[in-house]
């Protein structure tokens, strides 16, 4: 074998068996959690445990079969972690349902089903992620349209001060969640084409390599879009997410830290502008600094959610109250934005850390995929998806635990909410697709007899990049 051959000769193992084993373990989390909720709250195993457990198991095993068929070389850890998180989320939502006599868990299970179907669809239809590069501008356009949809008078809905919902008949939807994925694709497609211009042309100011004015256009445009989202939809979280995402991709594509400086300054400027111009931003900030002065009688009581969340988590302590022994109904929107606080209260620091580590694993797997990926577009998409995921988790969990000011974002896979769940399943499908491509053995045109026959059938146009 040639020098190159021995380097490329490392072949990732498929590890589908390991994935199946981990998936079965993850079902213990989901179904076991559901049973534990029944035990803790009603002191009996839920009567629908067979139906519920069967459904969940079928969905999870279904994803495994799809992956086995369509993406045999995909990363084996991603899916089990996602399955565990989704199962835990369902159990916690069920626990809140029992406390408040709602039926969110069943709806969430339906959304999960739709999410899994889209996951399967994505993997089946999209056999090579590079196809998506063709839709760069389409994706961008659709994302902008989706972002603007809630602004329409009839479709759009104002919920809790943020205008990020559309409603068609009985169906509510947060288009921002889908726009997030499309924006990753659009940015990656744009940047992979223009990275050289962005990276090489520039002038040196003091010790910084600043990009040219005309190349600054896109980032300025993105900054304005983010501010627009912030201004018109009052959605602090998404605005932060989109801007951070673009900045990360720009930096990764150009390999120039100067962009981080420019972007960071723009972020600070935007944050300052938002703070001085908008009352709701100032209020969020003031609640963050001293939530107790916004809690209880005689105050505006706007800090109640975060204070109750802190009380709950503090009460949970190291090992938590256990399912059914906490009082998570004191936190408003506990099933969506504040589900992490419920986990902290009833499963304690132990459970909370497990959840954070699970998210960390997803991000780590995503970035690892980006590292081993052979094409620039795939690298950028994987990096973007992983980082947007990390940012979202940081913003929402950091907000709930009062590390940073609170911004409304869903907790991926845990929170109640269809749009978020479905979008995140698609994200995982994309990551698995890229990882399958990346880990798949390079077709050997020298006709190595050891390769299985079907490997030759996979026609791959491998464009070896310098990176």
């Amino acid at each position, binding site marked *: 074998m040639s020098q190159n051959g021995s380097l490329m000769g490392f072949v990732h193992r498929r590890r589908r068996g390991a994935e199946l084993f981990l998936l079965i373990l993850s079902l213990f989390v989901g179904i076991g959690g559901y049973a534990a909720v029944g035990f803790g709250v009603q002191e009996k195993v839920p009567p629908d445990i067979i139906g519920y457990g069967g459904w969940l198991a079928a969905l999870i095993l279904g994803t495994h079969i799809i992956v086995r068929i369509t993406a045999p070389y995909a990363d084996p850890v991603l899916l089990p972690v996602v399955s565990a998180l989704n199962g835990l989320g369902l159990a916690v939502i069920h626990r809140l349902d029992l406390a408040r006599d709602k039926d969110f868990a069943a709806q969430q299970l339906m959304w999960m089903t739709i999410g899994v179907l889209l996951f399967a669809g994505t993997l089946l239809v999209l056999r090579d992620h590079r196809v998506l590069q063709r839709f760069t501008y389409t994706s961008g356009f659709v994302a902008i349209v989706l972002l603007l949809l809630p602004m329409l008078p009839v479709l759009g809905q104002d919920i809790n001060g943020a205008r990020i919902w559309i409603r068609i008949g009985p169906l509510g939807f947060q288009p921002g969640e889908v726009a997030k994925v499309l924006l990753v694709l659009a940015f990656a497609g744009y940047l992979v084409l223009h990275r050289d211009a962005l990276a090489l042309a520039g002038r040196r100011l003091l010790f910084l390599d600043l990009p040219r004015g005309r190349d600054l256009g896109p980032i300025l445009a993105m900054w304005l879009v983010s501010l627009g989202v912030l201004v018109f939809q009052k959605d602090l979280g998404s605005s932060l997410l989109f801007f951070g995402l673009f900045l*990360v991709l720009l*930096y*990764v*594509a150009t*390999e120039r830290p100067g962009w981080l400086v420019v972007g960071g300054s723009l972020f600070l400027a935007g944050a300052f502008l938002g703070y001085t111009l908008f009352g709701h931003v100032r209020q969020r900030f003031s609640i963050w600094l001293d939530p*107790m002065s916004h*809690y*209880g009688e005689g105050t505006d009581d706007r800090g109640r959610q975060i*204070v109750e969340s*802190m*009380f*709950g*988590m*503090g*009460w*949970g*302590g*190291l090992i938590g109250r*256990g399912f059914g022994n*906490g*009082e998570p109904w*004191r936190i408003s929107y506990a099933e969506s934005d504040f589900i992490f606080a419920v986990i*902290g209260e009833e499963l*304690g*620091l132990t459970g*909370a*850390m497990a959840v*954070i*580590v699970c*998210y*960390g694993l997803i*991000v*780590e797997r995503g*970035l690892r995929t*980006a*590292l081993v990926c052979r094409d*620039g577009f795939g*690298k*950028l998409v994987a*990096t973007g998806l*992983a*980082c947007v995921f*990390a*940012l979202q*988790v*940081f913003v929402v*969990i*950091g907000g709930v*635990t*009062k*590390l940073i000011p609170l911004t409304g974002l869903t907790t991926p896979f845990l929170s109640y909410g269809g749009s978020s769940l479905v979008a995140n399943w698609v994200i995982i499908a994309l990551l698995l697709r890229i990882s399958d491509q990346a880990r798949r053995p390079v077709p050997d045109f020298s006709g190595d007899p050891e390769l299985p026959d079907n490997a030759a059938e996979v026609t791959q146009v491998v464009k070896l990049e310098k*990176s």
Partner: protein
Amino acid sequence: MNKPIRTMSIFCMLLFLALLANSTYVMYLQSGELADDPNNRRIVEARFSRERGAILVGKNTIAESKPSDDRYLYQRVYSTPFKYAHLTGVFNFFGQTALEKTQNDFLSGDDDSLFLTSFLDMISSKSPKGGSVQLTIDPRAQDAAWDGLNEDLPAGTRASAVALEPSTGKILAMASIPSYDPNKLASHDLDEVNKQDRRLQKDDNKPLDNRAIETRLPPGSTFKLVTAAAALESGDYDSAEDLVPGGFEFDLPQTDDTIGNHDGGDCGGERITMSSAMQQSCNVSFLSLANDLGPEKMREQAEAFGFNQEYLDDLPGQVESAYPANLDPPQTAMSGIGQSEVAATPLQMAMVVAAIANDGVVMKPYLVDNELTPDLEALPKTEPEDFSEAVSPSTAEELTKMMVATVDDGTGEPAQIDGVEVAGKTGTAQSAAERNPYAWFVAFAPDHDVAVAVMIQDAAGVGRDEIAGGRLGGPIAKSIIEAVIE
């Protein structure tokens, strides 16, 4: 592109480390601080729903938690509501008072001495139970005090009685009227609790006050014991038989006023024995003694008995009995008969006689005898503690002689008990001319271990002399002593 991807990986790792660190901070390090926040309804409700330990008197339970069917799981029940109300206090949703407050950590099970039990409960996921508290109260003494205050006095009287065990400082009885029903304040119907609380707060007779420790009044002639103690301790006098000034009236220094005796007599001459002065409660004698001793010696003696200090840890709200500094000469003379700026609680006066009974040593008063774990295992008893040495044993002996004479053949006659030597002292203090005076009676039994103070704040329809004669307080003190020595 791999280098920036690696940089981003490190960045993401830092984000997750920050989340882990902050979660640890909130759920572990800050946990206690969050739990102590009074707004934290989770903690308040959880504590309110916990099986709380009992408060025991003798073998009887005066406060306990009984299972209830509502969301709070346990209802606090006070089985002898009015009699012990000022001792138990109330445990309700909004907080605690009296013993329920001072013993809260133990009763709720949060106390460190219950750590092992509550830890084991946590491991076996049983809900934690609180420990119980055994009081020093002698139920018969408390019954005697309570019945005496309620039956021997006209209805509507405000009064209090305290009994101590002189050798230890144990509080054997502590009663105060009017009282209230803690059960009504402990209800799970929170609106009703608020209504009752407002009604009691507004009541002019202040039924929520524990008069034994929270009401401070001029001690009147009972303070002559302190004056006599100061005189004996000063070295100017050696025994009860030493002669002190008597006569019809005392010229108040720096004024044109004179003060006479309560019966208008001359106490038997210009020079009488100290014992005789005590027996008749002769104002002139003690005015001149205090005048001669001066404000410093008087105050030092009062403070040696506990004035101007806090000493009761087991109940909240003990007010300091007062002997102010820098009294001018007329005030100093008046303080000798327990008037002017001097004010004492019934507990303080009980401590004065208890010290005389205990060879001059004041014991720190206490109410909690010992604590019991949830499994009714007794923890070590409270150790009696010396509070101060108020007078020498010989002074205590002379004072005892005077007090015995007062009961045997003086103003304290109503406290006589057949076959038992009783030492006592009456007191009457003027408030305003149009009001009834305060009546006091303090007593102890030299051969037994009990000292009593009775205070009647305002006895309607009773003449001044009758009060001075100890007719109101004497019999109550007597029945308490009888109850203890039986």
